[in-house]
């Protein structure tokens, strides 16, 4: 008789990590919606605004890719700190992408909310 091995369910924290990873690109683009920011400011914005604490070793290379894809542009600006900082801003293509991503996110979370409504109701 064949024995079916049922894998153990993933722990909730692992699922959370996967979810956060998927949202990082959208979170970075959204953080730059209304102003230009440099790398460290973007990380602080993510940590304050959405509790996304992301290591520097992840954010900088990702910014570099978003720039290579034409979603961001960058410029060096002399700062009071005594050294220049590299500021990022959204390009026109980047702005269109955030709008599309935000629209998708809203539809997706609305339909998920409908599914979750009975769960929330019974869990109370």
């Amino acid at each position, binding site marked *: 008789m064949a024995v079916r091995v049922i894998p153990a369910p993933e722990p909730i924290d692992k699922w959370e990590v996967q979810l956060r990873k998927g949202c990082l690109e959208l979170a970075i683009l959204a953080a730059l919606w209304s102003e230009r920011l440099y790398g460290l400011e973007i990380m602080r914005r993510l940590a304050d605004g959405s509790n996304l604490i992301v290591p*520097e*070793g*992840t954010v900088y*290379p*990702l910014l570099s890719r978003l720039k290579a894809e034409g979603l961001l542009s960058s410029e060096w600006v002399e700062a009071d700190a005594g*050294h220049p900082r590299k500021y990022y801003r959204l390009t026109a293509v980047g702005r269109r992408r955030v709008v599309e991503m935000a629209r998708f996110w809203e539809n997706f979370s609305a339909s998920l909310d409908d599914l979750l409504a009975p769960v929330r109701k019974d869990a109370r």
Partner: protein
Amino acid sequence: MPTITSQQTRMDAYLAELRTHLRSLPHEQMLDIVEEIRSHIRDTAAADGAMTEASLNAALHRLGPASALAATYLTENLLARAERTRSPWLFLKSSLHWASLSVQGFFVFLGALIGYSLATAFSFCALAKPLNPHRVGLWRIDADSFSLHLGLSRSLPTPPGHEVLGWWITPLGLVVAMILVLLTTEIGLRTIRRFQRARMHFAH
């Protein structure tokens, strides 16, 4: 006691290592990345005034080893460029450099090398058929075994057995080569993307 100069030297050494690992990128882009990381280290390690040994250690620790940081840059860069161009040469070149930085990179490079080598062999067969039709092609040796021959010299003996495809080896060889190139690039990019996701860590 460590001095500010010694912190500066350590920071420069970290940036020099980063620069070395990023050498496969265009020069301007490499300089831009190194300067951005320098600016970041200054912002985080000297946030309260002078850069101390402890603050520099903390800043470098958060950035991770220069080789790992460079590997992430190369991978992100490779993904962006390879997805845009789908160039096998670009993919192979970048994955070779990534191979020198990580075990996963080595296997991706090995897979790419095998895929592209097979594609090259099929292309050669396809293109060499008109030059030496009796020694280039697919031969059936016996009921179960086939042999792909690429005899470029006319002095070579004709392969034993029966030739199967004839002139069809030219269009079929080119189609198979093209499929192999596309598959190798696609699987390579997907593998890199999966490794890349696994590298990212999030704190709670």
